[in-house]
């Protein structure tokens, strides 16, 4: 029998053994994690819609999920969720592209000031072009808008400087930018605020090299302020809901995900402290026979998310603690004080508030 390199390869290198002949839930493309997460590592997240699932599961599985921008303790949780608090580590909403990420960091540190940085609705309410859905009906005044953004940027800076691990999920290559200064919007102007103007806005479909360059710049930016941080990058498996390129959305989806995947591969290969986590492969691999997508063929099912997070914990969370009672991790002094106040309010409601007493 002739010898060749494939004779000695491990099982996971062979499709039949590693994929085709395995139960769906046993497919594990991770193999080994590049680094492990310690019990107290502060894990921050950002990214596209799929990143919300990751954030939710991190919170629910005993990780030290780091939320630098929490809602005030007076605010009930369902309202905090509705207003975008705790969905990610700061209230930046979905960050779909690498360009958005680096610009968000630059804006938070005052090194980029987009010309078009506020959209006014016809009713006078104000929308943040860079997080247009964070405030369901916009801000009531310019002063409120600016106050909230100051707080938001302070939270982003705190996140950058205090996190131990940053999990970023890349979602899209397609983006809309300002022709004036290149500011990248998460949504096309006019969709959730603002007005589309072809003289001011243009469509850009980032190439793999551009994604890679943006991410390198983002890593460098963060490392300059926090040398201990490690990065986990993932690619969202969620297909594009629409493409602005004049071609089939399936073709655009394949391009977009491929470019993002290539960028991640290069980043993980070039940096010791950057790991790629194959959530994309777990969800989209043909071994699932599409079972990890809901009926719209876009939304990822809880089964799929569960498989991803099972692998994440298996490989990264060797020192994981049990889920806490309060799934939203609160670790700063201010948040501890907030929890105390929440408890005090709860006590007062139970004991004193007479209308509450009417309902047992």
């Amino acid at each position: 029998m002739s010898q060749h390199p494939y004779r000695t390869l491990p099982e996971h290198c062979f499709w039949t053994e590693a994929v085709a002949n395995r139960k769906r839930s046993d497919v594990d493309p991770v193999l080994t994690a590049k680094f492990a997460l310690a019990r107290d590592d502060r894990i921050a997240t950002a990214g596209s819609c799929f990143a919300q699932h990751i954030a939710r599961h991190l919170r629910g599985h005993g990780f030290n999920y780091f939320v630098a921008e929490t809602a005030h303790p007076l605010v009930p949780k369902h309202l905090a969720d509705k207003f975008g608090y705790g969905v990610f580590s700061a209230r930046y909403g979905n960050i779909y592209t690498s360009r958005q990420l680096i610009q968000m960091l630059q804006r938070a540190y005052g090194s980029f000031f987009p010309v078009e940085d506020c959209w006014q609705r016809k009713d006078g309410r104000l929308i943040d072009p860079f997080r247009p859905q964070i405030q369901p009906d916009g801000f009531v005044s310019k002063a409120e808008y600016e106050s909230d953004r100051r707080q938001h940027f302070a939270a982003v800076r705190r996140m950058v400087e205090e996190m131990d691990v940053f999990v970023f999920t890349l979602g899209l290559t397609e983006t809309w930018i300002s022709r004036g200064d290149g500011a990248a919007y998460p949504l096309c102007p006019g969709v959730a605020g603002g007005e589309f103007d072809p003289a001011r806005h243009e469509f850009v479909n980032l190439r793999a090299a551009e994604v890679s360059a943006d991410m390198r710049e983002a890593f460098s930016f963060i490392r300059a302020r926090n040398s201990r941080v490690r990065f986990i990058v993932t690619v969202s498996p969620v297909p594009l809901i629409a493409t602005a390129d004049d071609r089939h959305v399936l073709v655009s989806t394949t391009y977009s995900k491929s470019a993002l995947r290539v960028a991640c591969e290069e980043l993980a290969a070039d940096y010791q402290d950057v790991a790629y986590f194959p959530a994309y492969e777990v969800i989209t691999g043909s071994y699932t026979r599409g079972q990890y997508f809901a009926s719209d063929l876009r939304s990822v099912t809880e089964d799929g998310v569960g498989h991803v997070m099972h692998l994440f914990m298996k490989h990264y969370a060797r020192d994981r603690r049990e889920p806490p009672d309060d799934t939203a991790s609160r670790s700063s002094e201010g948040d501890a004080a907030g929890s105390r106040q929440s408890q005090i309010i709860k006590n007062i409601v139970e004991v004193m508030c007479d209308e509450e007493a009417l309902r047992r």
Partner: protein
Amino acid sequence: MLQVVCVGASHLHSLRHAYALRQRSGEIDFAFKIFQLLEDRYKPGYTSVDGQNVFNENFGIDFQEYLDTSKPSAVFTYLGGAEHALLSLTKSPRPFDFYIPGEDVQPDLNSEIIPYDLMLATCRYRVSNMSPWFPHLRSFTKLPLYQVGPPPPIAGDDHITLQADPVFSEAIARYGVAPARLRAKVWEVCNTAMRRVCEENLVHFVAPIAEARDADGCLLLQYRSHDALHANAAYGDLMLDRIVQIARERRDTESI
């Protein structure tokens, strides 16, 4: 004689005292009936069973009997009204403030600024506890419903510190009393929320007595009660005038 009825809880005391004083002085040309939901026989007001609100039977029997025998022209409610205190009587360990649309006064920018919409939604969440009562009351009568807005927050840090309900003691000792203007702002937003809940339930909202407010928007000292939340009989007297006037107008309209 004009029949006036009000269903509520702790804020009813100011109306009850005001009415009692009028009775003693003999200046009375109406009958005032209150349904005090804090009475043992009416507790609990309602319970949730399989997602359905099941209301106190004693209340239903008494209220129906009153309606049948007294024939009021409207039904007033004085429900809720402690929400603003719950949210802002004491300073927060995370000091906060907020902008109010159309108001030029700058909030405390050293505090955390809560977006107004979120503040309103938070107040509304607290205020909404009273809303199940409206369809319940409507199940007894087609008379118009009027919800009375709660009195402004009490002024005077020392008074609040000494007279607040014991459940606030720990928070007051630890954090102190919140600034008067902030407490008044939270009360205003709670009233906005209450007004909206009323509108959605086709309930008229009876605004609190504007003339009873001081420069910060809190209750003038002559109207505060012995505790840190409620108004006294003098305030109740002003509100009773307003309620009686509405009831009289309703009766006169019906009789035309």
